């Protein structure tokens, strides 16, 4: 009854948070990765520290599909609280592994799946004495059982443990003992391997496992950022943790031990934004990582930075809103907020990474563009990209890269001028030159959020006000030419159907395209990588009869933005929405298209 699913399955592990299952899950995922199988890991966790249900989903897919799949082939249920719902989630023909120290045969009753009881607690209690160790080793023991059931290479597991505990050989020993307990029990009691299993298919050379926040924090280090200000907020916290980690690694003076960076944990997001503006104003590259609620609080400063033209970089790792929403769940719900953040006429460039690799690259681009355009720059990531484990091509760095500091005048440059005016556009691109404090009195200017003219003086003159804000529109046109271009993926056949998406919806769309093509529906796909939209986006919409806009929010915010910014026919843009807080699966895209095109959905 079970179909063979080799290197194409979803393994889901349900545990209680705070029990140390993360390292066990990471061990499983890395083992499959090293067997050359494309894997992604998604952590579905509560807004809580200890005692509530948490799940980790590993999708193995030999074709390399990265999005969340709705099926569960193998469930490891370690939390009795959620047995019932975990059981319900397993797809027909699937497997349900649970801790049979306390047998539940009568409750765990489904004819169409196989229930596998492994007395994990009993095994560990018999072989380990310390109470905390018993709990931790229970997790490692299910890794062992899965190694037997899924045919995961135990040599790889051993190597991984040896690497992880290189300085603590005793831990390698105890972990291996736990693995063997689970492994041997499974071998003795079940037919191993299961039809759902892993098989070595290479070594994934050239790829790494990384989350987007780690990549973005690393990108800030490589961009030469020196000042980071923040107020801790899920799911952006690990971005600053990453910056801090790599700064400790690379940015300490070898002689003095002093830090060549300054991380300030601010009293709130307002202060974090103020610190970022102040530091950029005096010439440091400074940034803040935050999430939607933080952007709401920073909005006054964001408008200030727009009007006073202060380079600044804001990472928004989006989570479910509105208000506190669901802090540990993902959404793409802040694109409208960020595009126009703050009162008055304001517009801000957004960079839209679709995976951790782009988080790294766009972090660097963000600082360059912020300084080139002298304006707030947003990198719009989300919880799915930021906190989940993605398999990505190794990050690369070009040692010839030099940061673009934009129109930044040195003290000598200022001396060459007859007079320096901060807001005078002499090049016609809408960007005026700036100077740094501390260098030359002749280059001094006064930053203000109140009305100012092109010479930098206070004004209440209608003409002078208008002249300046109109010049900012010229700058906006320049921004359009500088931001990363959208990427077009053409269908194999000529088609009148288009799909537009961005960020973490990319994986679901790519998988859906193949599924749809298999049933005869072909669509061209444009992945947006920045706002303002380039002309290419206009043309794409113009050249297709129907354009599906796939995004993860209720109100079709990207669609609205497209209508506002591309002069397109709104009726052409069909929303395909996913907003329950879980990462978008490809099925949502398939269903969305099929529903509109009125064809039977393909599975």
């Amino acid at each position, binding site marked *: 009854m079970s179909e063979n699913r080799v290197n194409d399955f979803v393994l889901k592990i349900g545990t209680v948070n705070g029990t140390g299952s993360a390292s066990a899950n990471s061990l499983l995922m890395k083992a499959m990765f090293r067997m050359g199988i494309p894997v992604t890991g998604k952590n579905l966790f509560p807004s809580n520290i200890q005692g509530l249900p948490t799940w980790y989903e590993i999708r193995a897919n030999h074709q390399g599909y990265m999005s969340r799949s709705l099926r569960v082939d193998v469930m490891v249920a370690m939390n009795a609280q959620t047995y019932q719902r975990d059981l319900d989630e397993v797809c027909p023909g699937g497997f349900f592994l649970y801790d049979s120290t306390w047998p539940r045969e009568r409750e765990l009753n489904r004819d169409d799946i196989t229930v596998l009881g492994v007395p994990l607690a009993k095994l560990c209690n018999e072989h380990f004495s310390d109470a905390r160790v018993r709990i931790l080793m229970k997790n490692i023991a299910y890794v062992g059982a899965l190694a037997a059931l899924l045919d995961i290479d135990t040599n790889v597991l051993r190597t991984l443990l040896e690497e992880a505990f290189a300085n603590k050989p005793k831990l390698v020993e105890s972990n291996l003992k736990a693995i063997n307990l689970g492994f041997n029990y499974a071998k003795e009691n079940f037919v191993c391997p299961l039809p759902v299993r892993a098989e070595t298919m290479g070594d994934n050379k050239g790829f790494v496992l990384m989350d987007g926040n780690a990549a973005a924090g690393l990108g800030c*280090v490589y961009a030469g950022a020196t*000042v980071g200000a923040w107020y801790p907020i899920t799911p952006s916290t690990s971005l600053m943790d990453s910056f801090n980690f790599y700064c400790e690694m690379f940015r300490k003076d070898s002689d003095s031990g*002093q830090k*060549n960076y300054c991380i300030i944990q601010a009293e709130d997001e307002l*202060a974090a934004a103020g610190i970022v503006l*102040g530091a950029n104003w005096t*010439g440091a590259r400074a940034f803040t990582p935050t999430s939607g609620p933080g952007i709401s609080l920073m909005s006054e*400063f964001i408008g200030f930075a727009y009007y006073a033209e202060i380079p600044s970089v804001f990472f928004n790792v989006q989570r479910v809103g509105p208000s506190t929403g669901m802090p540990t769940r993902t959404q793409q719900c802040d694109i409208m907020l960020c595009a126009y953040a703050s009162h008055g006429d304001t517009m801000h460039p957004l960079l839209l990474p679709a995976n951790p690799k782009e988080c790294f690259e766009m972090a660097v681009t963000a600082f360059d563009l912020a300084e080139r355009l002298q304006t707030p720059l947003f990198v719009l990531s989300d919880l799915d990209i930021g906190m989940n484990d993605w398999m990505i091509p190794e990050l690369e760095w070009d040692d010839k890269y030099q940061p673009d500091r934009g129109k930044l005048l040195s003290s000598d440059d200022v001396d060459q001028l007859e007079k320096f005016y901060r807001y005078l556009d002499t090049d016609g691109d809408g960007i005026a030159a700036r100077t740094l404090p501390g260098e030359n009195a002749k280059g001094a200017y006064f930053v*203000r959020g109140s009305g100012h003219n092109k010479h930098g003086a206070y004004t209440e003159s209608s003409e002078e006000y208008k002249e300046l804000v109109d010049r900012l529109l010229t700058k906006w046109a320049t921004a359009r030419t500088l931001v990363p271009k959208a990427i077009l993926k053409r269908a194999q056949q000529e088609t009148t159907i288009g799909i537009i998406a961005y960020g973490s919806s990319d994986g679901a769309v790519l998988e859906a395209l193949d599924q749809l093509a298999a049933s005869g529906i072909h669509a061209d796909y444009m992945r947006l990588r920045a706002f303002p939209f380039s002309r290419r986006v206009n043309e794409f919409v113009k050249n297709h009869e129907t354009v599906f806009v796939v995004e993860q929010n209720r109100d079709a915010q990207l669609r609205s933005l497209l209508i506002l910014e591309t002069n397109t026919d709104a009726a052409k843009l069909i929303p395909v929405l996913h907003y329950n807080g879980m990462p978008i699966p490809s099925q949502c895209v398939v269903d969305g298209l099929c529903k509109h095109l009125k064809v039977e959905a393909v599975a």
Partner: protein
Amino acid sequence: MTYIAKPKIDLPGHRTNEIGLYTRDYEGVLSTLCAGCGHDSITAAIVQAFWEMSVPPEKVVKLSGIGCSSKTPAYFISGAHGFNSVHGRMPSVATGAMAGNRDLVCIGVSGDGDSLSIGFGQFGHAVRRNVNMLYIIENNGVYGLTKGQFSASADKGSKSKRGNINQWKNIDSVSTAISMGGSFAARSFSGDREQLVTLIKAGVKHPGCAVLDVVSPCVTFNNHPGSTKSYSYTRDHYHPALQTDFVPPATEIRTAYAEGESTVVELHDGTKLLLKKADSGYDATNRSGVLRYLEQQRARGEVVTGLLFINSELPDMHKIYDTSNKPMKDFEFEQLNPGSEALAKLQNRMR
């Protein structure tokens, strides 16, 4: 009237300072505040103090929030970069500015509304981080730009121009700064130029966050009988707790002073502050003693002035973080970027 450049006039007899600048080089554009505003006196004191200290204008950054007080950075040191930020948020911008370039001389100008209401949190955290700056609060107890509402520093029982009596206890920036672990807290009066100039100098030289609250009467909305922030009330209740002499580095203390009557505080650059006790037993380095004294005098309705508390040994933000002595903005990109080899190596652990 929007913006009026101040004519630079050479007056006979004007002297230059050690770096060859005249006082006019420390001025800014013409003030648009009301005639007689205490804030203009503070501006004049800033000009005098910075000229006397021979601070190069380009080394100065002047920041402010929103309100009458916050307009004033435009009126002094035109050769300094200025930053008129959003309401109540000057401290965070100053913190960032000093994070980016610690070599700057930072002066933040705020008001009682800006620092004790909307920006109370940021005020507290700049003090707590001990950001190296002079933090002036131009305190008039009233919202001027919105025409006369009480501010958080208005004393309970003080009367507004419209005749309302303030029912709320006031927030005292000096005792607040001290209790939050501040390293320097002083109060002065816009009408006492000599004391004000000395305290500005001491605050600039102090290696940390120097809070200087200056009672600065609002001639338009808070200078009537019944107000406790008027010129006449302040003069009648003016009570210098101690006198401070500012002695620049490498200068001898010339004034004679009796043992036990004065304390000398030496700052890191060699500047000495000579604190002469006007009230017997007042010790500006004794935190709990100072707080007790301020509470006593507050009950009596006195405006206690002077360098009321100092601890120049408290570490500033950079010392606590152990950041490089070199300003962040001066690092070469090559010193900040780990390079391709390091990137390849660090990814080995991600497999």
